[in-house]
């Protein structure tokens, strides 16, 4: 097997701040092949967005180390100009809130045209035609009219479609979607996810889907990386993660999954406490203050990410058998009882 299209190895990202160096991402590794989808899941501040921005080279003032390989190019060694040329063309990104992510003063068409013409020497007319095609492709009705509308004239879902059209306008081989559906209501969410899946199939794109919501990644992803406080907590295939999760944090996330078939408010399983501040990460396992199973080791030692099954890695001090027992006896019934 050759190296995946995108290979991230031991990525570390840190920011100098007034309060000292903040390590937002620690030793994260993963790979994504063409046509494959990786889901990255975690709360705010878990480092998932920083990871994706680090790949894109969009972090200002951050220190990155480790390795990022995109189609055989080392992004950390490439010049910023080289990386810029890759952006949009080889790797593209969709952001959470399409309203704020699109320039309010330019029409949707202008913004797609701009993205296209940066990487293609074509006339405006050609680019416009392409923009209309792209809008059509992402399912915007009457694209020849809507192309001249401004972002605020679109509905939320349409805006996200337009955003996707813009991101895909140069046929990128890697698409990073950072919380693409968070700002949308549930029915639209499903449409957008379907759209991403369809487009991925058509373009054979590698996709990284970032979300705090396991539900979003459940159907789309081949593999899932659960992050907590800048570290990988669990990394597994989607099937393994949902059927045999091993990290208490993953259990919590599973419990808190909102589902279409249930009243969300009264049955959500929840995690106590609040996510840690990256300025002041708890020692040992960062999750220990919120973990009901924490022991002395959790409080002092950072648990290593160890492979518990082929392609399934977990960073937790609880012995493997104990974890599986808790899952089977305590958690699973609660989660599935909710179902």
């Amino acid at each position, binding site marked *: 097997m050759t190296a995946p299209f995108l290979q991230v190895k031991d990525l570390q990202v840190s920011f100098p701040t007034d309060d000292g160096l903040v390590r937002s991402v620690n030793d994260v590794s993963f790979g994504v092949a063409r046509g494959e989808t990786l889901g990255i899941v975690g709360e705010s501040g878990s480092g998932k967005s920083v990871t994706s921005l680090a790949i894109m080279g969009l972090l200002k003032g951050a220190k990155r180390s480790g390795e990022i390989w995109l189609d055989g190019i080392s992004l950390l060694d490439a010049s910023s100009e080289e990386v810029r040329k890759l952006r949009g063309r080889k790797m593209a990104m969709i952001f959470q809130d399409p309203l704020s992510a699109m320039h309010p003063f330019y029409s949707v068409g202008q913004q797609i045209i701009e993205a296209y013409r940066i990487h293609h020497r074509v006339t405006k007319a050609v680019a416009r035609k392409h923009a209309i095609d792209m809008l059509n492709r992402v399912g915007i009705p009457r694209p020849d009219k809507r192309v001249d509308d401004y972002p605020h004239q679109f509905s939320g879902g349409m805006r996200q479609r337009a955003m996707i059209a813009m991101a895909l306008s140069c046929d990128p081989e890697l698409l990073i979607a950072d919380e693409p559906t968070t700002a949308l209501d549930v029915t639209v969410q499903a449409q957008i996810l379907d759209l991403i899946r369809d487009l991925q199939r058509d373009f054979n794109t590698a996709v990284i889907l970032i979300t705090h919501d396991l539900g979003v990644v459940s159907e789309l992803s081949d593999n899932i990386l659960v992050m907590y406080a800048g570290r990988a907590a669990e990394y597994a295939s989607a099937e393994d993660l949902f059927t045999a999760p091993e990290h208490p944090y993953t259990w919590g996330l599973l419990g808190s999954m909102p589902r279409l078939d249930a009243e969300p408010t009264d049955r959500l399983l929840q995690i106590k406490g609040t996510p*840690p501040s990256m300025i002041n990460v708890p020692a040992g396992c960062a999750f220990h203050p919120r973990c009901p199973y924490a022991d002395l080791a959790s409080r002092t030692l950072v648990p290593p990410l160890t492979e518990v099954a082929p392609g399934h890695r977990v960073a937790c001090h609880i012995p493997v058998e104990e974890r599986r027992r808790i899952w089977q006896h305590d958690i699973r019934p609660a989660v599935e009882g909710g179902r």
Partner: protein
Amino acid sequence: MTSPLDVPETATQAQPEAVLAGAGRAIEGRSLGQIAWLRLRRDRVALAGGVVIVVLILAAIAAPLLTRITGGSPTDFHQDLVDPTFSKPKGEGTFAGFSWEHPLGVEPRSGRDVFSRILYGAQISLLIGFLATLVSVAIGTLMGIVAGYFGGWVDTLISRLMDAFLAFPLLLFALALAGVIPDRAFGLSGNTLRIAVLVFIIGFFNWPYIGRIIRGQTLSLREREFVDAARSLGARGRWVMFKEMLPNLAAPILVYSTLMIPANILFEAALSFLGVGIRPPTPSWGKMLADAVPFYSVAPMYLVVPGLAIFVTVMAFNLLGDGLRDALDPRAR
């Protein structure tokens, strides 16, 4: 024992986005004020501004003491020190008239000690600057909260009122009003009345600036949960506005007050410069500058000294205000 993943009343939802804002506080147990102070303490420039302000205030209060050490009262004439023909202090060069007794020289015509006039002038500038700010902040906060909280036609009315205020040529109105101050009114007379009227005019004309800011802040506060909570518990408007919202507006009020004081000091100086300030012989910086106009070529330091006094004071407040804003609202950086 309940399941650890049950839903305790006090648990924070695992909808992570909602809780980020409170993260630092919960974990570190620091109040916003403490954080701000920590930040401010690192901002040497702002601290320098604060130190200058403290020194100025102390100097203004201690003016009678300080001037006793040097050149004496701000109104005593020393005409033996001036050249009557040329209307300038005796002596050669830029610093003619400077001496140990008169560390900042003497006035061209009267020979009055500039140093003590500057110190006494500081009393007027600071007093009016502070009090006028108080008036602006009081009116502005009240109007801003009411507009932001009630919204609707109340908001429209107050917002239009603020627009109208900003549409007036305020300096002209201030001049016109200050020009007709009677000798006695509201049980006050003389300079007390003039200070009161100046404070009122400056404060009254400036309230829309802070009013707009408070209105905006109130609008966003109104959407926050604790206000809803208070309202759902049956709290009435006044209670919500002043017990729930006001404390949350403390930071912007503090920041913009600090930034308004220098603006008001400048306004007072401008009015004095244009001739409608405090009565002579009480010194004020703006008046000193106006007095220096005919002499700027023969006695330049007489112009420079009060100008620098205004500059240093205003700059110090601005530095502190900027620092406070950065400390209390890091996004504004």
